[in-house]
């Protein structure tokens, strides 16, 4: 029993990271119908920039803030320089552009930072807490709490603020949103900044547990996408639930089946979802206007 609890704890921890990545996917997907494959690189940058700034002498909280702001700025730059110019391009072109951005950021991180694996100290020490015969790292609570706070913040933003509603309006119908006076370009900028910032935050929170390196982004992107898809593409509630589920499935696979192939769990989930319920847990069936 305590073994199962232990697996659940580690599943919830990684699941929270995937949920944050999935939320990042969802924000950009809703605003622009683009699936941003560079989403995982934001997580990588959050971790790497924080490590780098911390190693350069900044205190950890400040280093984390720098990392989040820098990554958000980079997200905006990607939108302005690579995605806006290709507006209206076929889906395949947009996939190639965002994958290109992802590969580019990996290459840049290799050169600017290095190819080593890095970490920085956990925020509240390393003394594990004992709960019901299992242990959990204080940092895990940071990660899980972070995902929940971000979700709650997004929910408030999208339902209670004018700006948030403007984003929703843009995702519903861009032209109509423009007609009622919404600055849709600003909405796009905001969405990319928000999404990149959330990705970076995930990297900051997770690095003391999962460690970071220039190449970790693509795995986060794959699993975050699996979570977003499991929950139903474009649905924030679904992204949160889907991300946590992917983490749990992965941890249980590692615990009971094979730790070598835990990475395969996300892929199997993708295939099963595509096979049996392409609209995901919370999604609606999508139709395309011709």
């Amino acid at each position: 029993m305590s073994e199962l609890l232990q697996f659940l704890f580690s599943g919830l921890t990684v699941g929270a990271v995937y949920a944050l990545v999935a939320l990042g996917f969802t924000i950009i997907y809703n605003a622009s119908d683009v699936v941003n494959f560079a989403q995982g690189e934001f997580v990588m940058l959050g971790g790497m920039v924080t490590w780098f700034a911390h190693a350069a002498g900044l205190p950890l909280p400040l280093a984390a803030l720098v990392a989040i702001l820098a990554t958000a700025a980079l997200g905006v730059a990607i939108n302005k320089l690579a995605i806006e110019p290709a507006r209206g391009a076929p889906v395949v072109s947009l996939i190639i552009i965002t994958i290109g951005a992802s590969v580019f950021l990996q290459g840049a991180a290799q050169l600017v930072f290095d190819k080593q694996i890095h970490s920085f100290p956990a925020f509240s020490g390393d003394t594990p807490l004992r709960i019901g015969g299992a242990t959990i790292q204080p940092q895990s609570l940071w990660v899980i709490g972070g995902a929940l706070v971000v979700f709650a913040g997004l929910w408030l933003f999208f339902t209670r603020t004018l700006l948030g509603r403007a984003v929703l309006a843009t995702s519903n119908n861009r032209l109509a949103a423009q007609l009622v006076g919404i600055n849709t370009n600003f909405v796009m900028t905001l969405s990319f900044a928000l999404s990149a910032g959330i990705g970076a935050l995930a990297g900051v929170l997770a690095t003391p547990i999962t460690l970071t390196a220039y190449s970790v982004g693509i795995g986060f992107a794959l699993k975050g996408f699996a979570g977003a898809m499991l929950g139903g593409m474009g649905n924030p509630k679904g992204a949160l639930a889907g991300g946590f589920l992917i983490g749990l499935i992965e941890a249980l696979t590692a615990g009971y089946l094979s730790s070598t192939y835990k990475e395969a769990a996300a892929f199997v989930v993708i295939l099963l979802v595509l096979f049996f319920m392409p609209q995901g847990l919370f999604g609606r069936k999508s139709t395309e206007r011709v």
Partner: protein
Amino acid sequence: MPRLSAKSATLLVLAALIAVTPFFFPSGYYYRVGALIFVNGLAVTGIVILTGYAGQISLGHAGFAGIGGYACALAPTHLGLHPSLAVVLGAVISGVLAYLVGRPILRLKGYYLAVATLGFGILVAMVLNNERQLTGGPDGIAVPELGLRGLLKDWGLDLTNGQFWYFFCGIVLLIGAWIALNLYQSPSGRALRALHGSEIAAGTVGIDVARVKLQAFVISAVYASVAGSLVALQNKFITPDVAGFMHSIEMVTMAVLGGAGSVLGAIFGAGILTLLPQVLTVFAEYEQLVLGLVMMLVMIFLREGLLPSVLRKLRGRGE
């Protein structure tokens, strides 16, 4: 003078390039580089069918190359197959896997194939890295000799190893290009191009969209598999890198750089990106940076790819 069809013109240009270039080789080493270009060109021709014709994208085609390569390493020792039959076995396994993976996914659109193939490629690389007892793990594994060069020697045609692989891969590339060009003009090819334009419109005129996409996916997987086999046989060695994510990205980049809609363009793209690391030794360090940049820039500024864009410019000036 009757105008050459685009198909014959492409094949003639390709055959001429393969036959004539060796006269300009400063050393035997360039046969190796040439053979590598042809193998990459073959894999990329498969991408042309999938991406250029059908408008679908795979981010895991290196997985199929890995299957083709490891089939040549494992089937001869474990099943006693001749290496040439191992190539066929690899192609069959790749085709069947592509069918099984593609069938549920290709009913859907766009992003789903990209993500599922991305996961598939990573999965193949993971198996090759982890099943040490069978695959030798990250260190790689030896691949037996194809034996065709010895056979040719018995028949009086004595080629160096480099020369043999240069011409052998060149001929396989020609065959691959010929098949792809024939497909382009066939009813299946027209169906593929129709759904590239609009899946809904293609469905409305009676094209079984999912089936046609699946065909393109399976065919392109077989191309990648055969290319992987040829690399393994030529090097007599293979590592899991052949199935790695970056190799998949290389294939896509080669295709879109040269022009995913045209066989010759894509092979041209394969040529450029294969030569680049040979010319620039520092390239290895910047490889990801450059590949990523090329992908973004081509899609923003030259969506048709380098060769078709240049040809259009030239033609526009001539008339």
